[in-house]
């Protein structure tokens, strides 16, 4: 446990040193969020009856998306890990007294958390100060807060577990670039990073909701804004648990097999 904590500490300090980078990142995300809301406002004003969710819930969704970008972004890859597999340097990692899967899982978690912790608060506070319906609206009930937190955790673990499968799949292929590319472009859209999933056309939307990617940011952000509640919320939470378990299992099986091959072939 201690070594994981010290890893987090190093990352966090590293992030602190670049204060200009942190500030500039926050400004960027704030502008991005504003643009996003202005865009949806234009659509709302053009045809309010076609809007699939409350405008307030949408604003909340967008601000959470900006604040917690680092937790759920699916286009972020540590090229170091890809590199260590393709060059065979991964063999050094195997000499350590920690299991590779655990080591990298914690690493993925840490990188995302340390980035998010540093940047989320100012954005959340700013967004909270904005006038309704453009700002971040806090839910009244304890119940909603609880399920949002639970769902955010599940979503984050899922994103990391999914990333692990992608990293490990490089053991089985030659081109990490190709995998990265296809996975990134698919997951971006299907997780609701481009437009929130409720805006997808009927038919496509139901299908996308069944896919694992809907278990990332889509669920917690919509619970928090009150768009997802009651029966649908519980189903979505179960879906998150299911997909998390599936990807954890797939990742570990793939790791075991891949390492066997590495050991046999001698890297």
């Amino acid at each position, binding site marked *: 446990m201690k070594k994981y904590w010290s890893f987090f500490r190093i990352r966090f300090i590293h992030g602190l040193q*670049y*204060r*200009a*980078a*942190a*500030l*500039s*990142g926050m*400004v*960027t995300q704030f*502008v*991005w969020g504003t*643009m996003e809301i*202005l*865009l949806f*406002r*234009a*659509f709302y*004003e*053009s*045809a309010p009856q*076609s809007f*699939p969710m409350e405008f307030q819930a949408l604003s909340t969704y967008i601000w959470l998306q900006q604040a917690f970008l680092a937790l759920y972004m699916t286009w972020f890859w540590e090229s170091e890990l890809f590199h260590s597999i393709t060059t065979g340097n991964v063999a050094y990692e195997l000499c350590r007294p920690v299991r590779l899967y655990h080591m990298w899982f914690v690493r993925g978690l840490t990188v995302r958390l340390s980035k998010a912790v540093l940047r989320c608060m100012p954005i959340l506070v700013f967004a909270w100060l904005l006038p309704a319906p453009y700002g971040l609206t806090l839910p009244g009930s304890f119940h909603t807060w609880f399920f949002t937190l639970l769902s955010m955790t599940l979503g984050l673990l899922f994103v990391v577990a999914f990333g692990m499968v992608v990293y490990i799949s490089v053991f089985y292929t030659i*081109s990490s*670039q*190709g995998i990265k*590319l*296809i996975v*990134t*472009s698919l997951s*971006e*859209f299907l997780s609701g990073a*481009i*437009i929130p999933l409720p*805006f*997808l*056309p009927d038919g*496509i939307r139901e299908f996308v909701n069944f896919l694992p990617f809907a278990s990332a940011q889509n669920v917690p952000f919509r619970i928090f804004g009150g768009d997802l509640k009651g029966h649908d919320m519980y189903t979505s939470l179960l879906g998150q648990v299911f997909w998390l378990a599936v990807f954890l299992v797939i990742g570990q099986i793939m790791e075991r097999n891949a390492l066997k091959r590495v050991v046999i072939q001698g890297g």
Partner: protein
Amino acid sequence: MNSTRLYEKYLLIHLKSMMQHKVSFLLTTIGQFLVSFNIFLGVRFMMDRFKEVKGFSYGEVLLCFSITLMAFTIAETIFRSLDTFETIIGNGEFDRILLRPRGSLFLVLCSKIELTRIGRLLQAVVMLIYGIYSSSIIWTPVRIMTVVLMIIGGVAVFAAIFLIFASICFFTLEGLEFMNIFTDGAREYGKYPIGIYGKTLLTICTYLVPFALFQYYPFLYLTGKTSDSWYSLLPLAACLFLIPAGLLWNFGLSRYQSTGS
């Protein structure tokens, strides 16, 4: 040897280098295509649901999107070195450039010609054709010229922004992420006519960073929302943005030579 010929030589070497990494080139090109295809899907589904946005139809939005995308892509292909100027400064390549008896900005531009953007350019062309086909614009010579001017003006504005970004690198290499607002952000949100985002933003994009001069106003003329044909010449005014950008570059360069960092 004049600069145009030298630029051609550089282009040739870039092509040769690229041929050594065909798979990587192909994948990056496809990647560029997929990323902007995602954005296209977003537009498609939104327009499907809402039918129109602030009076602009799907065909018109596509036309606007394709023009912005094309201008950005051309600018990025040529000026990519400025967008990655941090590395050129960081790894000492810029010092090497200063050791050559040529204009430093020219050699910086030569150092990178981003041919992988062809995937995105292709998409822009397809969308432009589709947009022309599906919008109900009556095409006149003036309107065709307007499209050309919009693209030229757009390339100039994006070039100026890349140049400003590079100039800032002379002063600091930290915290430059916010410049993404003007590059990726403008490409991203420039898919819709800028006017839909409201008055405040339109004012900013008219007087501060002249995105609207090459995108929104001439587009109003193109789609017949105004009959004032002067609007079609505004992209030329947008090109003036290159002047302050150039001055900033010169200022930054002289500072770099006095601090060397």
